């Protein structure tokens, strides 16, 4: 299954480690992130049911769509009485960033057949962030599956609990759970922000575009607009790309 999967050039070992860091702990970190983020399924489940979805519909979305932003988008559209078609459209549009993540992860995961059908379900923000933060390709795969497995289980159980108990829970904000996502993402891209100027430009550009667009577009769409920032930086630094600038964490790619 793992034969000749990725582009050959990206499978090499790194020529230069980014910086001395603690040993990679992909399993522990993946499980930790999966649990911490998965708990916010409580908020989704509760929101979905108060939007007018049934418990079964709320759970079906978590089981089959498994991408939080899209799920919230559909529930939110239904809640405000928007058209179902518009709700589906915005939910699917929001899911399009997972395509970009999958492009990035395809060579790293190197999955074929049934494993690919399964792995596709797990391509989301958290698993991509965790997998791309690892120092080696093996660690990347471990991190992906550990994060995916834990998060899938926790997210779905929490969805069910939230849907059944809608309105009876305190706000997840009281526990600071709304900061878990951004803090985790920051921790995971931190080494890459430190490793190169192109990475910092892409990150800063993406953040600025999203913030500038946020007041004018439905939630979620501004984040997708950050992709052109990555393209612009890739274009601007294309001369260095060929020589393997990003050798720092090359193995994870």
């Amino acid at each position, binding site marked *: 299954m793992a034969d000749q999967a990725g582009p050959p050039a990206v499978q090499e070992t790194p020529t230069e480690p980014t910086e001395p860091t603690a040993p990679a702990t992909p399993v522990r970190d993946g499980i930790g992130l999966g649990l911490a983020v998965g708990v916010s399924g409580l908020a989704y489940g509760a929101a979905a049911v108060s939007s007018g979805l049934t418990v079964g519909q709320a759970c079906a979305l978590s089981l089959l769509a498994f991408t939080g932003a899209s799920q919230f988008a559909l529930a939110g559209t239904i809640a405000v009485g928007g058209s179902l078609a518009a709700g589906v459209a915005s939910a699917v549009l929001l899911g399009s960033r997972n395509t970009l993540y999958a492009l990035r992860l395809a060579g790293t995961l190197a999955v074929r057949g049934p494993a*690919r059908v399964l792995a*596709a379900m797990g391509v989301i923000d958290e698993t991509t962030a965790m997998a791309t933060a690892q120092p080696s390709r093996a660690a990347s795969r471990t991190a992906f599956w550990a994060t995916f497995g834990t998060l899938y289980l926790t997210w779905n159980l929490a969805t069910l609990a939230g849907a059944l108990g809608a309105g009876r829970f305190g706000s997840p904000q*009281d526990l600071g759970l709304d900061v878990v996502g951004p803090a985790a993402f920051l921790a995971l891209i931190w080494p890459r922000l430190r490793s190169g100027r192109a990475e910092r430009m892409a990150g800063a550009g993406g953040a600025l575009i999203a913030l500038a667009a946020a007041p004018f577009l439905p939630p979620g769409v501004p984040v997708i607009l950050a992709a052109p920032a990555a393209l612009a930086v890739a274009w601007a630094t294309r001369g260095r790309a060929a020589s393997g600038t990003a050798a720092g964490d090359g193995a994870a790619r």
Partner: protein
Amino acid sequence: MTAVWAAVLATAAGCYGLKLAGLVVPPRLLERPLARRFAELVPVALLAALIAVQTLTSGQSLQADPARLAGMAAAVAALLARLPFLAVIVAAAGTAALIRLC
């Protein structure tokens, strides 16, 4: 089947299809240096955008929630101190929760 069920299943099919599409693209499409560089930078740009939006907006309005900002500041401090990943998360969530308690 109700219309809502149809919408739920269409959303699920669309979201899954988009994930699978990225995995089945022939690897040679990513062999061009520009495409590879783009694929490498995309997670950084999108995750940074997500961090910004989740930290500084609420719905469609820009919002500086003190507890959230403090939580993120704690995360940065923990990262600068080179604390392990889970400690960064706990520091961020704990700080935000603490501030909301007060």
